[in-house]
């Protein structure tokens, strides 16, 4: 049996748990709990430890989908989570106060991991706030010299999440179908 990991990360409430649920073969395991300050995030639960989902490939291979908890105080776990990961899916939300800061913060936090693998970025909740635009996110990264896929994503839509994962796979290996 071979096991591989894809990591989903991003700030609180951007849709990590939802995205993993959208493509997982198994009922996702989440450690959401009713936080006392839920009024702030306006959703039923926030993930306190991590999310877990899985995609089975035949009998022998599994892709584990791990989601980091959104709340930054759990960052000691991130290092452990990324070990053996094949790539990072970073979700940010247009509906948060400063999504650019969020993006830079997470890219920076995972710098070492990204350096050895690849990252793709999904911008969620653009239906709730249409600005900044996707181009604006690209502009933020223009000086970095790398071209990261950045897609508008609704974490509830399986096709959107799939396409994001596909872009990660092609970034890792453009000749995937050759």
């Amino acid at each position, binding site marked *: 049996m071979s096991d591989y990991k894809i990591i989903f990360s991003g700030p609180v409430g951007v849709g990590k748990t939802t995205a993993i649920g959208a493509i997982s073969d198994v009922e996702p395991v989440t450690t959401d709990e009713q936080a006392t300050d839920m009024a702030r995030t306006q959703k039923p639960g926030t993930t306190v430890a991590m999310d877990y989902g899985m995609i089975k490939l035949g009998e022998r*291979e599994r892709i584990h989908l791990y989601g980091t908890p959104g709340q930054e105080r759990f960052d000691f776990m991130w290092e452990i989570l990324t070990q053996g990961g094949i790539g990072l899916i970073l979700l940010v939300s247009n509906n948060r106060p400063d999504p650019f800061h969020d993006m830079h913060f997470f890219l920076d936090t995972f710098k070492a991991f990204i350096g050895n693998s690849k990252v793709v970025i999904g911008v969620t909740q653009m239906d709730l706030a249409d600005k900044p635009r996707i181009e604006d996110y690209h502009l933020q990264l223009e000086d970095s010299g790398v071209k990261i896929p950045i897609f508008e994503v609704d974490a509830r839509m399986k096709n959107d999440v799939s396409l994001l994962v596909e*872009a990660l796979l092609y970034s890792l290996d453009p*000749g*995937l*179908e050759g």
Partner: protein
Amino acid sequence: MTKPPSVPIRMAAIGMDQRQRNALRMLFSTKCGNRYVLMEEDSSEICILDLDAFGGERLWEEFRERHPQRPLILVSLRAREASDDFTLFVQKPIPVDRLITAIEHQRRHLSAKNEDVAHLPPLDIQPPLAEQAGQPEIQQPRKQHATRKAASLMSESMERAFVGTSPNIDPKDPEQLAKIYYNPEHYLQGHLQQALNLAVRHNKDIAVEGPWPAIHLFYESRKIRVSAKERQLRPYCTIPDATLEVPLRFLDQEKNSADGAREYSIAAFHWQLALWASRGRLPIGTDLSQPIYLRRWPNFTRLVVTPYALAIAALWAEQPRSLVDTAQTLNIPQRYVFAFYSAAKAIQLAGETRRAVDTLLAPSAVEKSKHHGLLGRLLGRLRGDKEQT
């Protein structure tokens, strides 16, 4: 060479896009030990101006009006005569050492500013003649292509509409070559481009009306509304000269949209019109051997995704590559590459490289990931799932 000055020379790049600027910035920091820094024109000492930029000649003229004596390095793919003592010409693709030589020359020029500059020795910075790259060889595909089905979520009829069915061509055969081009200006695609230009210039909404279902362009919200279903619109997008003599007009007030109206983002609509017009062909004048750059990844979740589009994007995101080389490297029919390029070009996400480093270095082979097989199986799974929905 003179020893590095303690204070870096302040350079500016004129007529260069962000990408070219980044290339220069990288070059200065990695190959030149930060002897030069890139700044805005106002605070710069020496400028590099790309004559091949849009309106390059005018940029040059205006620059000289602003700064009659500022040292300038002109670059272009075509050989030029530099016209005055303060101007040096370097032909592209620019060999790095020639660029450095030119900057250093202009630097001495700087320190000699208050002296008699005419005494500087002439400088030979023409590229050697023998540096002509050979045409890429067309090879037979190494093996059978992956099944179309695995690569595509499109039905065959959709794929025919967006990518066509043209066979591979040999770029050395003029007869075959003639068949792969289309002129976007002759299609509704070109008409839309004009409408966009007009909208930008006047900051107004535009009605693109004719025999086809009405297309309304809302500039502020970057939206397009079409008064009918796609299958009613598409025929007009695939025939040339449907737009002859049909004027654009400003849209004064929002009309009630008819039944079956569809809304698009401008980019998604433009992308789709380009695919329909191109059907696997290329905008006229596209050079098959010139490396193609991808400015940024298209927002694929909100665009028509043609077969292999993600693979092509991933390849170009790493490094510019010619259209013919792209098809070969990915081992896919050329029409998929041509279709994707036509669409990406239409929304200004891709183009032929004009950047020195791109035409200087031959693209490297693609590396297979150590997880190649696994990633392929996961891809198949994600696609398979989607097909069922």
